[in-house]
């Protein structure tokens, strides 16, 4: 009985609390402290190690998150794709590879933050907390991929219906109750991260200048005399 109560608390209440905090604080912070919406990048302080942290981490996590999103929005696509063992193996190995990239990148980022004194000076407690949560999230995800394969399929059958039930405001926690502790930990930590998100530098995710990817190139012309400016 107790475990049913806990399941309801973690998988029927926590998601709503996290999402409420996410939306309310994200919006109010954008309205009141617009210029704090930044990744506060430390790239200018050191760029050699940073490449091996930032690039694998960002490409890794973007692909892995996109995979979770597709599993949630189009579970039947995933099941159709996985109907052939070769395709299933391809999807699972790709997911694992991008998960490993994410963890490698994350560890490089954390080590650099600690070892490089200039970078450490501009790191806050909230940053360290974000790193701790992210390391927990990515390592539980990898442990699930290895020990509880094939997650792409059972995400579509057991987790997608639960996520949709959350969206329909009638959480069916019976989908989650019997799942192993590792999976529950991954889900709970995901919602803790979502709730913590708007207080951290992770908000830069929402203000990525995406139009840069498809806008037309611009020719920049100086309309003043630079020679004269320099001499003045």
């Amino acid at each position, binding site marked *: *009985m107790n475990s*049913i109560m806990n399941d309801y608390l973690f998988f029927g209440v926590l998601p709503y609390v996290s999402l409420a905090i996410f939306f309310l604080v994200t919006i109010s912070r954008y309205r009141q402290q617009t210029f704090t919406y930044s990744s506060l990048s430390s790239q200018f302080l050191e*760029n*050699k190690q940073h*490449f*091996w942290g930032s*690039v*694998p981490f960002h*490409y890794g996590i973007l692909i892995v998150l996109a995979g979770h999103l597709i599993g949630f929005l189009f579970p039947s696509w995933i*099941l159709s794709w*996985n*109907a*052939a*063992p*070769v395709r*299933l*193996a391809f999807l*699972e*190995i*790709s997911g*694992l*590879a*991008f*998960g*490993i*990239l994410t963890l*490698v990148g994350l560890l490089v980022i954390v080590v650099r933050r600690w070892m490089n004194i200039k970078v450490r000076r501009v790191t806050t407690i909230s940053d360290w907390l974000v790193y701790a949560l992210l390391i927990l999230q990515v390592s539980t995800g990898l442990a699930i*991929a*290895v*020990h*509880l*394969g*094939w*997650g792409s*399929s*059972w995400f*579509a*059958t*057991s987790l997608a*219906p639960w996520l949709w039930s959350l969206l329909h405001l009638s959480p*069916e926690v*019976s*989908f989650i*109750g*019997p*799942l*192993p502790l590792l999976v529950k930990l991954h889900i709970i930590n995901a919602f803790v991260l979502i709730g913590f998100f708007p207080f951290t530098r992770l908000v830069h995710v929402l203000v990525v200048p995406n139009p840069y990817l498809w806008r037309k190139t611009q020719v920049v012309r100086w309309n003043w005399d630079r020679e004269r400016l320099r001499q003045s």
Partner: protein
Amino acid sequence: MHLTTTQALLALALLAGPLSAQEPPSEETIEFFSLNCKSCHTIGGGRLTGPDLKGLGERRDRDWVVRFLQDPASVLNGGGEYEQKLLADANGTYMPDLPGIDAARASKLYDLILAESALEKSQFAGVQVSDRPLTEADVERGRRLFLGAERFKNGAPACISCHTTAGLPGLGGGVLGPDLTAAYGRLEGRTALTAWLSAPPSATMQPVFAKRSLEGEEILALVAWLQHEAEGGDFESSPRSLPFVLAGIAAAGALLVLFDIFWRGRFRGVRRPLVHGGNEA
């Protein structure tokens, strides 16, 4: 004949009295039994994985059944001769915990079993299992259904999502659920396995299959495949996580090399290019 109000009320109470004592089982209790019990038990249809429940009232009292349903393992472990025989008859398989069970629901289930036992033919006398011989075509269809190459008609997910067997190709099946190579023997053969698949009662499968039940011919094909796997005699599915992990690490390494090549002209600092540029000049 004219009745006074008091007489009429008295007559109603007399009529209602015996009715309420034998209140018919609620739809909810019947549905609970269908979802959780009938895949292992019949009422008057003979033994499946668990015993036939007909006449349970003569064997056990309400108090015992209510305790048992709420915590089967501890009653079986702490019990006497009867409990040990139950375990022995089920080849040492424990009855799983029932989701959402409490004393009130257990008591209603006991009432349902008593009521159904009293009938000549209970609605839970067992699924009608076709006894036609299983063919090679059934085995092949079962394999395709297991892998997901053929989809279940009602939209149930393929078995490979969570289960594996020794005869699967490549990296094998999922490991969220148990390895099913020996499931045919574990569930005591065709009849019980068919009943089990008609309403999978495990806590993980139940919510997924409740609205997507398997059809009779699909179940037969799966039974044929699982029988085929069990007869293979190779009950040790080789662990396939090592090649999977190695492939993942190799792919991640290859991606890192690609990143390095793709961004070979990246900014690496100010001083070094200046010094190099100076040397060249």
